[in-house]
């Protein structure tokens, strides 16, 4: 019986030829990462409780300050200081203000076939490059920092077979919202969501990351796309040459398969307060917005910024509406500057923020007040996620968010592009 990509990666990680769903393995971790959302807790556990003296391998431990950067309060500054001091003492890689952790990992670390564990639920993003990423809490992460390994159960795999091409104004973001709406917020609990089919070759790396990033919003352990030439070329262009290329066997066993034709997908919106509460933008009715946000580990990369710029070029956002844009990394920001996108954003009336998690997680600048409505390319629309407990968050593609910012209410972006 064959294996899926996810099973093959886990087999390699635990040094076996074959693993099966349901089997509990002890796996060696290729990389572990932690951000300022919770690293202060890891450090407390590591130093005070575990009485750890060294991390297992400083080159494989990465600390990234991205959630509340620059610090908005002395309490947060204290958290950052603690991370900085630990990183210096233990010589682990340290980034501060360079972008959203997952984007930095993709730019600087991830290669196909790795097992990467991080204290952040959106670690599943790395599946876009054919790596098995999964999120854990800080206790598990601390034990990995210490030992370089962890136990986990091999998940079942769900296969999302995609064919066709997106129509104009429709993006990977709309597809993943549609899928989560179809299977539900627990539709993939502890499963691998594998994205496959003839459509994959036409999907950019950004598209693939968009799909895998939100796998956790359906409860998945990880999202995965088999790495192909496009990924290999990207990873090599970043100076990384060692990789483990896996594809699912023809006789691999999937718990279930789903078929999607990309041409059937419309712009989708997740309405408050659950990510699986998804409707086509055409059915949303009149929803006025107070704020719009483009950014986050899901949708702040150069391709999304280009789409937003296409829609915003030469136009002004609606009166009394704020549009906040945070490129996913410093590198993306510089690219956007070079391409003139930042000029377009600022001329349209948008505020361009530094690269960070920003409005998506509601911990820093850009929170919304009581009764306010946000449309966002962020990852979650939970109650109170972006500010006041009585506020509303809608999720959509960068195109839908940009179009909505221009009109002042949630708007179908088709017909507004170019």
């Amino acid at each position: 019986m064959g294996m899926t990509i996810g099973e093959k990666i886990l087999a390699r990680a635990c040094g076996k030829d074959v693993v099966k769903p349901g089997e509990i393995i002890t796996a060696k971790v290729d990389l572990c990462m932690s951000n300022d959302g919770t690293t202060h807790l890891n450090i407390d556990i590591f130093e005070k409780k575990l009485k750890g003296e060294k991390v297992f391998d400083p080159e494989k431990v990465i600390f990234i300050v991205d959630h509340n950067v620059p610090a908005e309060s002395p309490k947060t500054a204290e958290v950052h200081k603690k991370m900085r001091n630990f990183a210096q003492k233990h010589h682990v890689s340290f980034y501060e203000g360079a972008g959203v952790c997952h984007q930095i990992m993709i730019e600087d670390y991830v290669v196909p076939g790795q097992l990467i564990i991080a204290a952040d639920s959106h670690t599943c993003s790395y599946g876009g490059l054919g790596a098995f990423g999964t999120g854990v809490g800080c206790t598990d992460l601390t034990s990995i920092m210490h030992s370089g390994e962890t136990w986990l159960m091999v998940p079942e795999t769900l296969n999302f077979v995609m064919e066709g091409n997106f129509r104009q104004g429709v993006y990977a973001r709309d597809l993943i919202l549609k899928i989560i709406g179809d299977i539900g917020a627990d539709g993939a609990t502890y499963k691998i969501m594998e994205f496959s089919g003839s459509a994959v070759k036409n999907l950019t790396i950004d598209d693939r990351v968009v799909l895998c990033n939100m796998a956790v919003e359906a409860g998945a352990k990880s999202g995965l796309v088999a790495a192909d030439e496009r990924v290999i070329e990207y990873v090599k262009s970043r100076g990384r040459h060692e990789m483990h290329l896996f594809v699912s066997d023809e006789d691999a066993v999937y718990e279930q398969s789903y078929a999607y034709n990309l041409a059937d997908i419309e712009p989708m919106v997740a309405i408050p307060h659950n990510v699986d509460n998804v409707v086509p933008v055409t059915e949303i009715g009149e929803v006025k917005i107070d704020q719009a946000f483009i950014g986050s580990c899901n949708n702040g990369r150069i391709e999304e910024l280009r789409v937003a710029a296409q829609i915003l070029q030469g136009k002004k956002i609606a009166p009394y509406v704020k549009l906040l844009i945070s490129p996913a990394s410093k590198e993306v920001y510089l690219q956007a500057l070079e391409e003139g996108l930042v000029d377009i954003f600022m001329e349209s009336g948008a505020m361009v923020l530094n690269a960070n998690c920003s409005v998506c997680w509601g911990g820093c600048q850009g929170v919304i007040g009581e009764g306010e409505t946000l449309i966002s390319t962020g990852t979650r629309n939970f109650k109170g996620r972006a500010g006041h407990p009585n506020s509303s968050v809608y999720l959509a593609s960068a195109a839908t968010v940009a179009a909505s910012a221009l009109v002042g209410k949630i708007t179908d972006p088709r017909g507004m592009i170019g």
Partner: protein
Amino acid sequence: MKENFTGKVWKLGDDIDTDIIIPTQFLALKSVEDMKKYAFHPLRPELASLIQPGDIIVAGKNFGCGSSREQAPEIIAALKVGCIIAKSYARIFYRNAFNNGLLLLENDVLYDCCNEGDQVTVNLENSQVFLGEEAFPVVSIPGDLLQMVQAGGLVPFMRKKNGK
């Protein structure tokens, strides 16, 4: 933790996410003791002050979905909740809960049968939960996981094992 205990039920619905359990703006508070006052704040701001040690949270499906923030199970454990009995759990939360000494049990039916304020009795030895005379089966928790919960979580459990 005793193998038999009774507690008063607080009912929460489906998809209780980690941002409801502990909203982002309270994560930088210095201690879990400071944070626990804000448990479930966006949904029921008064709830954290009403929960008494030993009370039991009964919830619907996909409890703990969302972020990997470990403060979520940590503050529920700090409120000294006896256990959570939900239809199902998000898996990052599931593991974080046991790592922090918070017992999670699963049952599909109890939620629809009980009311807030009811007393339920947990019998871990027989993997059952009682609402009055009626028994509801729960998945058996293996001995070492139970010992971990009893020790207060993974780290205290490891220290105990290592004699530190």
